């Protein structure tokens, strides 16, 4: 029987692809030597990771005095970046989880890469509270375990919630990523050319055979875990926002923080996903499976969540005025005109101004514009975290305690270091594991062929007339 190519009306996979050519193309990413552009990313990332290690060593040996934190700005760059990285991680889970539940087929090309992005972003984020403790060797004290001192964590504190939320998030996003990888690892095992890679992928694939019964249980578990990951994403960033909103610092103490942080997370996460995917698809020639339509949809999600963020910026100003609370009003004026005003206005320019370009298809379809806007969106979200954390803390209730914050070279090294570690991790992952889920794409190709069959008026090649698209 002639293999039917899936193209034409279905833009999700372009080109005349059969199962064979599609799996060949996707496996080649791992099996062939990497494109030239991979090496600079790998090296720069590696240097960044080394810088991170050095800055951590300096922090541990010399102490937190090497950072720019002071009283009242006791939460400096580390919390700015903690919140920033966690936000970036969220798009991965959203793409892989919420879009599964909504049966959005376009996720299939994106979910693996964004899940990897999530994993490394959450690792970067989790690092900051850890080193902010100053004594990382005692980090286990924050876990609820019976100890000889008889003390327990304070479960009514959002900081304790944070610990549990981040650890849960890290665990489930890792398991979800691994679960999705298993069938692809089995494929790589069978395609392996050397004994070493065959054993490596064989062990990692856990002996997956592709048995129909296994697939059936696997899908049931996968969809369930996707359903559970969805509320976790929302809860994690809401809990992070409660770290702030539970405090009484002017500029923090508002109930709108959880949805504010969640929409900011989706916005920055989709922006980072675009920043990674646009060069990746070009370097690895993946335009067939990550089409312009995918990028267009991602830009639309970015626009929608960014508009939510912009709305809350305006709402914050309104609340400050409407509450009549003098300290809130003073905080807003401090943002508008204080020494940190350039940060505030740059944030407004990017997150409210530049974002509006995404309304227009001609900008959404221009890859350069999209790439630059996605990078700017991440800068904008970084500025937002800076505004929330540092501007609010630098001026609380007592004029005598007002104090500016100036990051030191260690602060900057920690930040650039995590950026390097993030790139390094993703570069290595792509080298050894397929960045696009092969089994998912084969399944998508199968589903697209089904759709074509239906549209042509032929009877769907399926028994007992049930809807073949219903996932089980």
């Amino acid at each position, binding site marked *: 029987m002639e293999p039917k190519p899936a193209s034409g009306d279905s833009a999700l996979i372009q080109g005349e692809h059969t199962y064979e050519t599609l799996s060949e193309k996707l496996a080649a990413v791992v099996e062939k030597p990497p494109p030239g552009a991979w090496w600079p990313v790998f090296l720069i990332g590696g240097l960044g990771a080394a810088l991170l290690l050095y800055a951590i060593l300096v922090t541990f040996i010399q102490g937190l005095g090497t950072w720019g934190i002071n009283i009242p700005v006791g939460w400096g760059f580390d919390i700015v970046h903690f919140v920033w990285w966690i936000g970036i991680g969220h798009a991965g889970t959203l793409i892989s989880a919420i879009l599964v539940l909504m049966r959005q087929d376009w996720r299939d090309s994106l979910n693996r890469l964004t899940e990897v992005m999530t994993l490394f972003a959450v690792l970067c984020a989790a690092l900051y509270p850890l080193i902010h403790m100053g004594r990382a060797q005692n980090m286990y004290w924050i876990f609820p375990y019976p100890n000889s001192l008889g003390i327990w964590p304070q479960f009514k504190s959002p900081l304790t919630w944070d610990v549990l939320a981040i650890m849960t998030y890290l665990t*489930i996003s890792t398991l979800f990523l691994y679960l999705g990888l298993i069938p692809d690892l089995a494929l790589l095992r069978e395609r392996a050319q050397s004994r070493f890679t065959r054993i490596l992928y064989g062990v990692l694939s856990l002996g997956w055979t592709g048995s129909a019964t296994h697939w059936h249980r696997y899908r049931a578990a996968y969809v369930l875990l996707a359903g559970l990951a969805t509320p976790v994403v929302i809860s994690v960033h809401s809990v992070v926002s409660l770290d702030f909103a539970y405090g009484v610092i002017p500029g923090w103490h508002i109930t709108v923080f959880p949805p504010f942080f969640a929409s900011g997370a989706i916005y920055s996460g989709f922006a980072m996903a675009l920043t990674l995917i646009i060069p990746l698809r070009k370097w690895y020639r993946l335009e067939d499976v990550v089409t312009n339509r995918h990028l267009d949809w991602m830009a639309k999600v970015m626009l929608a969540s960014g508009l939510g963020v912009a709305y809350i910026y305006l709402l914050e100003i309104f609340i400050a005025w409407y509450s009549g609370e003098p300290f809130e009003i003073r905080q807003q004026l401090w943002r508008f005109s204080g020494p940190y005003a350039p940060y505030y206005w740059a944030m407004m320019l990017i997150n409210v101004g530049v974002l509006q370009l995404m309304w227009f298809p001609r900008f959404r379809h221009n890859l350069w514009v999209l790439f630059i806007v996605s990078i700017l969106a991440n800068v904008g979200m970084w500025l937002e975290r800076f505004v929330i954390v540092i501007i609010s803390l630098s001026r609380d209730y007592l004029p005598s305690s007002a104090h500016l914050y100036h990051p030191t070279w260690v602060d900057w090294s920690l930040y650039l270091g995590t950026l390097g570690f993030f790139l390094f991790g993703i570069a290595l992952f792509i080298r050894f594991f397929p960045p696009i889920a092969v089994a998912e794409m084969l399944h998508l190709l199968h589903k697209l062929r089904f759709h074509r069959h239906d549209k042509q008026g032929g009877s769907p090649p399926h028994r007992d007339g049930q809807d073949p698209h219903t996932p089980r």
Partner: protein
Amino acid sequence: MLHGLAAYFETPEDLLDAVPKVRAAGYRYLEAYTPFPVEGLVDALGTRDERIPWIAFTLGALGAIGGFALQAWVQVAAYPLNIGGKPLLAWPAYIPITFELTILSITLGLFVTLLALNGLPLSYHPVTRTRGYRRALVDRFVLVVEARDPRFELSETRRFLEELGAAVEEVRD
């Protein structure tokens, strides 16, 4: 030792058409291998497994009760802290952690359950030693009739499978 016969089909539809015929012929020890989940295949094979959602529910209930009980016990009995006269059993404040522990229990438990039900990790499976298996992870849809089936008879079963339009290969341990 003979494990069974593998019949290779070109499309998932061909496999789905063939399975009821094989079952009607009296074969019971069947398993199919496909590159991606094929809807309706487990129903045809009769190996549908409805346990996963129930196991997840049980794990979740245990996680929720355990998480809440841990916090309530710690805050009320083991380490009571009176902060501003607020109630010790401040249950709304326990909801975030209860929720996270519920999800964590389901996820970890379900992952282990999935491996256990599927008999993974597995170091060796005879099917993976057949010549056609590599394509079963790409574009072939395989039906294996196992040799332990009482109805199994090597040459007759092979002819029967070939009549269904499949290429047939022996699976040996």
